[in-house]
């Protein structure tokens, strides 16, 4: 018996065999019969099909993982650019602070603290929003009886916040070094 389920352009057929039938031979016959069809078939045992589907799912999750890292990288570069621009805009302020006696190391800490706090609060807000969406959205991907549900957890939240903090520190290092090592005279001349 063939049951065709049309999902977009993907067609899946399920062939129920009688007891004692040679599954591999039947699969080969089906593929041979449908070879002249518009799309050739690839018939396998159900277990092999499920294993292949799960493997695809694992690959998909792996890809999503890398996509996540790419997003973190993108956010890192955005935060770094924003912090650098913000510091560039206020180079004169940092020069004024150093003129009145603030140590260069303290301006370095100021810039680092600003970048870290911005990322921390942004991370907390973003993580809270994402976890809430996950909690109420009930998102999951599944195929052939295997379902992977995206569930929020304390660890996921903690991981996100720690990542935000790390992004803040890393993004803040170049502008912080810039303010700590700049010439005060040049800083005072900047607009």
């Amino acid at each position, binding site marked *: 018996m063939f049951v065709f389920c049309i999902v977009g352009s993907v067609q899946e057929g399920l062939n129920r065999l009688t007891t004692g039938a040679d599954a591999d031979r039947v699969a080969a016959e089906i593929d041979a019969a449908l070879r002249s069809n518009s799309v050739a078939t690839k018939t396998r045992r159900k277990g092999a099909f499920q294993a292949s589907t799960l493997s695809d799912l694992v690959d998909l999750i792996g890809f999503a993982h890398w996509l996540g890292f790419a997003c973190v990288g993108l956010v890192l570069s955005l935060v770094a650019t924003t912090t650098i621009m913000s510091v560039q805009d206020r180079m004169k*302020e940092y020069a004024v*602070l150093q003129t*009145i*006696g*603030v*140590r*260069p*190391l303290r301006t370095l800490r100021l810039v680092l603290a600003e970048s870290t706090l911005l990322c921390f609060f942004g991370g907390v807000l973003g993580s809270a929003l994402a976890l809430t969406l996950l909690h109420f959205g009930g998102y999951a991907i599944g195929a052939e009886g295997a379902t992977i549900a995206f569930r929020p957890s304390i660890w996921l939240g903690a991981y996100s916040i720690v990542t935000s903090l790390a992004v803040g520190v890393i993004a803040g290092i170049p502008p912080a070094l810039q303010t700590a090592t700049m010439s*005060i*005279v040049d800083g005072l001349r900047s607009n």
Partner: protein
Amino acid sequence: MSIVELRGVTKSFRKGDETITPLDNVDLDIQQGEFVSLMGPSGTGKSTLLNIVSGIDRIESGTIRINGQQIEKLSRGKLADWRAANLGYIFQTHNLIPVLTAYENVELPTLLLKLTASERRSRVEVALEAVGLMDRANHYPRQLSGGQEQRVGIARAIVAHPTVVVADEPTGSLDAETSLQVQSLLIRLNQELNITMLMVTHDKQVASIATRRLYLDRGKFLEANEVEVLRD
């Protein structure tokens, strides 16, 4: 003993293929309570001299002693500490921190000193009172006029009771009337609080408020008769 003592100070830098020497073997002495104005054409080293006395620029050779302390070889961190305790800087464009109130801007230098909260409050109030802005203490820079901002800048420069106050064209960005107010404030601070001042200006009238006037040209101080020749 001089409060400010410069000996054989030379400063030069490269601009393209050219070596510019804004200060060439300069000597300078400023006594306690003196009000010195520094004039000269643009690019002759007035601001460079001011920056060197302030410890925000380095020299190639010579010595700088402020109140007996040699500062030209101090590290950046130590120079910052020295500035916090000994220097008041009045900028041409006040350079207040826009997110801080007038009170907080004036309080900034005192946060770098070992003072109690009540000592800090007292000093800030005295400084704001001295520039006549106690009633504007909680205003942000954007809520103040140009003259008021400059007076807050002056209060910030004197609040730490510095050894010397330097002023880089303090009236340069003000209208005539406000400029006169700031000038009389500077005179009063010098006379009443005995603050030693070094002021750079382009304006002969502003320079005339000082007790001693110096003229810098091509890296050297000119004698009074040479200045007269130039003026003629």
